[in-house]
């Protein structure tokens, strides 16, 4: 099937997840081979998701782990019962 750009955009997320059918995948890739705009949409989306998923993007406050385990321990000590 010949896809237009809007059809490709609608599939970008599933395509990234690898959850489109083999036929749809082939149709999308045929379109991408001839459409620099949709290729840029796909590349930019993938790139942004890689950056979002990087540990450095969302830092955890300094001392977070110590405070978390400290409060948990405090609760365990005061509750007296396990699990």
């Amino acid at each position, binding site marked *: 099937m010949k896809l237009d*750009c*809007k059809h490709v*955009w*609608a599939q*970008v*997320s*599933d395509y*990234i*997840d*690898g*959850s489109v059918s083999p036929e749809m995948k082939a149709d999308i890739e045929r379109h991408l081979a001839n459409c*620099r*705009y949709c*290729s*840029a*949409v796909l*590349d*930019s*989306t993938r*790139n*942004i*998701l*890689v*950056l*979002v*998923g*990087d*540990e*450095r*993007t*969302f*830092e*955890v*406050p300094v001392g*977070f*782990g110590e*405070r*978390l*385990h400290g*409060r*948990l*321990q405090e*609760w*365990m000590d005061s*509750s007296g019962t*396990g*699990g």
Partner: protein
Amino acid sequence: MKSAAEKDAKQSALAAETAAREAELIARILAGERELFHELIRPYERGLYVAAYAIVQHEADAEDVAQEAVIKAYKGLKSFRGDARFSTWLMAITLNEARSRWRQAKGEQLDFLSDCEESAGDYTPSVLADWRYIPSEQLERKELRQALQEAMAKLSPEHREALILRDVRGMSIAETAEATGANEGLVKVRLFRARISMQKLLAPKLAPKQRGFMGWLTRKAGGQ
């Protein structure tokens, strides 16, 4: 290069190994070795904070949510049946805690399970002529991290939730559905909207040809 099937098999084996190790830890905790609970949650604590922050958008509240969630998980460990992964169960507790905090703060009754949310809305990407790959090393620059965080803050809480679980925590669609209580179809819709929105918000800013990524970073750093 490994095939996708080999990768899947390796991941399944690792997941089974983790599940077996955690099941053993849980049995020992319930038998009285309660200190082991610290060990059980340690691999997930960072993820709990990030997921809580995705919803409440406030550092101290997110930290408090994560603390409350681990205490609730400890108290409810007996009820963990092992049908889902421990990490998914723990995440579901954290999300419930974060949603409840968010509702209190906003005084709103947001239905995280509704599938008719924002039926309107423009979910088309920003169209560019080309894209030059931005390597992860650029995240050393505060301006880029800030741009990503600001874009994320503009998404709705349920879109942020889906994006964080899938694209930051690397959970599968099925696990994301299980942790959020939404069905897989709704998770996919939210994910599509969240990803397209992020592209739309960030691509024009970061694209080299349109405004100049390095130039944008420099202007941003200079407060212009």
